[in-house]
């Protein structure tokens, strides 16, 4: 329920009427299972396309909207782990058969698409085959966002209508197999809707995707909510989710979940919640925003630490940063404990220094591998610099071979947290005779044609975030060296270490969680020696909602706080 505070008599006639409507109508012709409506204020841009596996549909907003509309075999839980969704699959296992990884998925017999057609092995097979290649010559589709994992599937086999087996190429097991069917961008594709019978036509369908005005086509949804064309107003940027009458599991408790694009202006977010015009907001955390929300009455605010982590990348091809001593000296000169206290520590007392590049603090298997670097050690930093011929200049900045230790830190624009992080780090390392200056640039994520982009690899130091995942091996491309086959595609540091490579390869092919954790930590230990990058902290997420909502629990992974929105209800 919206506003209705019960005290209005004269002025609130309209509001009373609205409230009554909201309470009684019980959803527009969709089973009548739920009660009332909630309004979700979406901070990111309104999506143009609802099909998440193409570029047009790959956005945070889609992630939030779609999470319980197109669901996968696995759900990503708030503690950054995969959990099989019993509504979708009765079991999903991976095993080694003759040295080949075989994934066996048993589909819930009751599972049906929203047009009543059953979800079958053919849908899973189609999901894999549609995304196995971007090369049209091999029957692939260039518009598909990614093929990683699917391209390692050797064959798929429908054991029955409700059971499918995927066999991976020999010697190339895929540790992150759960991630292939985990919802979000890894949704299950509805074959009878999407498959056009021939790869070229299917590719044309994929390319077009689902433009937002058309909603998700009937027969393509397998979650408790429906995203129908009639409930989408593109101009007003409003989308109303209604319950899926064909859903066989627990039905949503609400009649409507209204998605309203509120934008990222933090003041607008706070005031909308304060005036009870929206029920849930999920803005980027900022100091005053968090403090403002925490002091609001009738509102619950929680800060969680999510899958994004901030870090510094050093360009190892830079003449000065090529010296590991310089990179280590910068790490030693930083007081990362003080940095965390000064930044994300202000949002939540649970904030910690991230001392692992592959496993996050809040993730199972986290080990503090960078103990010596948590706090500042100016003397050691200086001695490292002096050990390779560093001389203190008159301005208090070291020079090596006549070149001053002055570095430009590139980062994104309009991000106060990063501005604050760089300002703090710069002030810290200055004490060790190293000068950092900030250079905020919108081109940072551009391709090679932009000289200031990471891809162009002309930077010195970069500050940005990586998105982690429940699967540790998905981080591999950050640390593997560049290879012609595309390994290390995102290793902008261009650093390479054979020991790390070995461990990362182990990680990619690990079949048990413990094996993954061991390999990841071994790789990270070595990476502390290399110091191509410095991890800083997990980025917090901020969820705030009116107290008349129950059932909310932030999911700081990409699944977002609407991950269990079918369980939301009004008190």
């Amino acid at each position: 329920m919206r506003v209705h505070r019960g005290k209005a008599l004269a002025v609130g006639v309209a509001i009373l009427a609205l409230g009554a409507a909201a309470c009684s109508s019980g959803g527009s012709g969709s089973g009548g299972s739920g009660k009332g409506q909630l309004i979700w204020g979406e901070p990111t841009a309104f999506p143009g396309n609802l099909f998440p596996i193409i570029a047009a549909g790959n956005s945070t907003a889609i992630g939030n909207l779609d999470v319980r509309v197109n669901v996968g075999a696995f759900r990503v839980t708030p503690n950054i782990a995969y959990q099989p969704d019993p509504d979708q699959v009765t079991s999903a296992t991976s095993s080694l058969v003759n040295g080949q990884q075989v994934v066996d998925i048993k589909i819930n017999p009751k599972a049906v698409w929203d047009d009543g057609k059953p979800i079958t092995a053919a849908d899973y097979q189609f999901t894999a085959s549609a995304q196995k290649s971007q090369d049209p010559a091999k029957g692939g589709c260039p518009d598909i966002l990614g093929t990683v994992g699917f391209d390692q599937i050797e064959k798929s086999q429908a054991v029955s209508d409700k059971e499918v087996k995927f066999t991976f190429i020999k010697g190339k097991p895929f540790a992150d197999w759960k991630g292939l069917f985990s919802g979000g961008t890894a949704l299950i594709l509805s074959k009878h809707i999407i498959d056009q019978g021939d790869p070229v036509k299917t590719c044309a369908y994929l390319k077009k995707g689902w433009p937002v005005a058309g909603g998700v086509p009937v027969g393509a949804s397998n979650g408790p909510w429906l995203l129908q064309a009639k409930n989408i107003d593109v101009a007003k940027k409003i989308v109303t989710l209604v319950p899926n009458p064909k859903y066989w599991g627990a039905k949503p408790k609400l009649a409507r979940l209204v998605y309203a694009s509120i934008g990222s202006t933090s003041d607008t977010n706070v005031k909308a919640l304060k005036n009870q015009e929206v029920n849930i907001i999920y803005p980027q955390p900022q100091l005053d925003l968090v403090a403002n929300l925490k002091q609001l009455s009738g509102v619950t605010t929680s800060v969680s630490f999510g899958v994004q982590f901030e870090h510094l990348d050093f360009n190892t091809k830079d003449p000065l940063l090529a010296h590991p001593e310089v990179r280590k000296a910068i790490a030693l000169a930083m007081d990362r404990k003080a940095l965390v206290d000064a930044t994300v520590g202000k949002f939540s007392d649970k904030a910690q220094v991230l001392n692992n590049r592959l496993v996050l603090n809040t993730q199972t298997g986290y080990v503090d591998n960078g103990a010596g670097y948590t706090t500042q050690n100016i003397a050691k930093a200086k001695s490292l610099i002096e050990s390779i011929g560093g001389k203190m200049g008159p301005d208090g900045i070291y020079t090596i071979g006549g070149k001053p230790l002055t570095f430009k830190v590139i980062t994104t624009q309009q991000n106060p947290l990063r501005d604050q992080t760089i300002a703090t780090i710069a002030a810290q390392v200055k004490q060790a005779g190293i000068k950092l200056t900030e250079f905020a640039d919108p081109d940072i994520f551009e391709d090679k044609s932009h000289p200031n982009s990471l891809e162009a690899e002309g930077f010195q130091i970069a500050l940005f975030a990586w998105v982690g995942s429940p699967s540790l091996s998905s981080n591999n491309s950050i640390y593997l060296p560049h290879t012609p086959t595309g390994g290390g595609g995102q290793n902008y540091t261009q650093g390479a270490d054979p020991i790390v490579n070995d461990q990362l390869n182990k990680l990619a092919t690990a079949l048990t969680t413990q094996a993954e954790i061991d390999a990841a930590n071994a790789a990270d230990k070595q990476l502390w020696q290399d110091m191509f990058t410095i991890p800083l902290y997990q980025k917090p997420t901020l969820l705030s909602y009116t107290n008349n909502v129950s059932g909310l629990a932030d999911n700081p992974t990409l699944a977002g706080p609407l991950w269990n929105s079918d369980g939301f209800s009004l008190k």
Partner: protein
Amino acid sequence: MAISSEVELVTPVGNQSPELDEGFGSASRSQGRLALSRFLRSPMSMISTIVFVGIVGFCFIYPYFYKWNFATPDLRKVAQSAHPGQAGHILGTDETGFDLFARLMRGTQRDFVIMVASTFVTLVIGIAIGAIAGYFGSIADNLLMRFVDVMLSVPVLVILIIYGNRHPNMGALQLGVVLGVFGWMGLSRLVRAQFLGLKEREFVEAAHAMGASNSRIIFRHLIPNSMGTILVFGTIFAAISIVLETSLTFLGVGVHQPDTSLGLLITTGVNAADTRPWLFYYPGILIVIIVLAVNLIGEGIRNALDPRHNRVRD
């Protein structure tokens, strides 16, 4: 934002008033000096001038003596989000430990640069275009005034955002120049109108008869006689350029970290009204004072040059 309408407020002041003459015995004073003395005798104008010059002068000089630097945060834990007066920070600090007082001085410096650069550029372009259109007339006038129509048909703010998107790392000087490049249209219309009137006056014909060149007539006769209008426009534009800077910074175009400007300070401070009020009120009040002072100086000049507003006897 509303550059155009602001400009229209200007009363044409090129006409000297015949009533003022016959004072052969009075002290030797020029039109300008008369206006100056009227300006100086208006308390509002004087206070505004003193406030403005005082603030700007202080913000340029005092940083040399102040112990906190705008670019170096105080890393002590106590100095993060310090209240005014706490931990040795007069006006407090922000969350990083940047001294607000040092930042306000730096921001004022940057905005002064923006103000001066934008006003200078606008005056140069506006006078040049207005002078050519008004003085040479016919085709030049027609073309230039249609060009002004074209420039006015697109919201300035939008042009500036597009420019800012392409030039993400503008400094204050560049921002000022760009503000000026897109802000001259009103002035050129005013100068043209003034020139159209002035060039029919006999002293211009007299200069022709003496053999004066066009440039001499424009620079020695017409522009000095339009100076009142130009001055008033200039001050109002200076005030508007600061407000525009805040709008642009709010929209993500303009001065960025690690530098700062008043616009940036209030953009970040606007969320802190309840939680850290010093970050909200001090920059907001400072910007209102500066813009108000500049506007009132403009109003003072207008009144001083307006012969009808003749309360001061002489």
